[in-house]
């Protein structure tokens, strides 16, 4: 399951296993290079009346780091993933219920958040919840000399002037979420956006491949 050289884009090798956890409705473990994330999806669930919503399912996203005290950056990741999932899930089909997405970091060698988004998407696919579209996250870094590096390694991130991450939907390849760090020019942003958009194809292909192999087992 390794997505290799495609046009001139290259993403880190991806490896995925679905149904990793027996108690969750959907779960996936995804390795993108050396970064590994485990995600589980439960839902639709019966939840407290106070947190129920008439219009759509209440989405709860929990991100848990590998160790140490919980901190603010974990909460930031949660909000990014929640917003992304919110657009992807057809929550209106499950009013008055709750959907819980739990994400566990296993290894972080850069690109943790993109890996978490992709892993969450696979877990959602696995859980069988209805979705508007799937999403794919791709990150890139701008190094000191102004070159764009797709899917940077840990060292590249440390030395980068800026990092940019984009999440695209599968239908029109429109931008769903974007988050950046560091300083960059508008041109660099646009270029990064286009390159990541092109590279997102690889991720979608990978999704297809994963789902296809699992379909075969069922069929």
């Amino acid at each position, binding site marked *: 399951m390794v997505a290799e050289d495609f046009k001139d884009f290259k993403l880190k090798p991806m490896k995925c296993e679905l149904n990793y956890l*027996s108690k*969750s409705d959907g779960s996936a473990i995804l390795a993108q290079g050396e970064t590994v994330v485990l995600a589980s999806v439960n839902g639709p669930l*019966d939840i407290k009346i106070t947190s129920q919503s008439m219009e759509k399912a209440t989405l709860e996203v*929990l991100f848990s780091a590998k160790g140490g005290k919980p901190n603010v950056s974990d909460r930031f990741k949660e909000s990014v993933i929640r917003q992304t999932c919110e657009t992807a899930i057809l929550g209106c089909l499950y009013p008055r219920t709750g959907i819980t997405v*739990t994400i566990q970091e296993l*290894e972080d060698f850069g690109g943790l958040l993109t890996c978490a988004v992709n892993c969450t998407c696979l877990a959602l696919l696995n859980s069988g919840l209805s979705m508007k579209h799937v999403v794919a996250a791709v990150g890139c870094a701008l190094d000191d000399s102004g070159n764009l590096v797709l899917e940077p390694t840990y060292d590249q991130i440390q030395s980068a002037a800026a990092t940019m991450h984009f999440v695209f939907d599968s239908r029109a390849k429109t931008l769903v979420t974007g988050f950046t760090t560091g300083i960059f020019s508008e041109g660099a942003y646009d270029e990064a956006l286009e390159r990541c958009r092109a590279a997102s194809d690889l991720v979608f292909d990978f999704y297809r491949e994963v789902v296809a*192999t699992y379909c075969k087992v069922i069929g």
Partner: protein
Amino acid sequence: MKETQISNSEKTFVQKIIAGGHRLDGRIYSETRNLQIAFGSDYGSCMVSLGETKVLAQVSCEVVQPKQIRPNEGIIFINVDISPMAAPQFEANRQTDHTVNLNRLLEKCYKDSKCIDLESLCIVVEEKVWSLRVDVKILNHEGNLIECASIATLAALAHFKRPDVTRVGDKVIIHSIAEKDPIPTVLYHYPVCLTYAIFGSDILLSDPSYIEEAVCMCTFEEGSAGGGLLVVGMNQYKEPCLLDLTGAAIHNVNIVHKAILSASEKGKSVVDVLKKAIISDDTLRLKRVKINYADIITTEHKQSLIKKDISICLKNYNANDINPESDVEMDDDVQIVEPSKYDVVPTLPKTAELKVKAEKSAWIEISSEEDD
């Protein structure tokens, strides 16, 4: 979400087959599920799975000021986190009785039994000591959390290495792992918690699964000898260092002795497995092999459905000459009676899985969901 109540028929079924000497997954009373220990790229990071129960443990360290009453001892802090990932009934960031109990058991097993040399964690008396923090995250709850969590904690502690420090005058320099070889934690003994489910007055099940735990905890009818869970902490020197009983009262003291006796054997074997895993991991690291959790992802073994084990295991491996007498294991066997399509292949001891004859690479599971 509230925990799903266990139905009466499930309860009586499980009780009956256990009284008859069987278990749902085909194990014998004293048999444990398959134990696997995987290490991550960091020191002190490990994932332990006991059957389908999965626990992640991570040790981290920082330099802090020691407590006033123990100025020359390091600090160890154990934190258990049961998120909704473990099972949907758990709520996030909430201290339930379950969490507290699990946390306290681990604290008692590793802090109070003095298994860690805390004095070696001291850097400057009354000023600086290492504080070890063990984060135990429950990933999947298929019963016997405490045993799995305790093995994970112990493995993480034994695997953990803290950075070396040197003192130059008043200054303390902490060396990065690249500069100086890190130092492993000194463990005086290796205690592990082993769980026994008590059924009736004298049946002890080791390593109970989720349903067995649930069934033995909810037998409260008057007259019947209620069941309970007995946790025994045992180290490799056959010294019990923790006991905990939940559920109904034990009527016979002998059952405790029986459990301790069995735990002393099992404890040693678990510790052996653990030590072996750590040694092999160490040698791999010495050879500069990169170890990463990505290794546990298998691409060849695919499950189309969530249930990995066939919930009822087969004792006879050939589906064609299935023994019609085994009437206790009925329900799901209906499909097995039509033998043509599948091969029954032994995998783990006392476990079998069904393989589709035509397609070699794919696995298929027996489960009620297949009917649709």
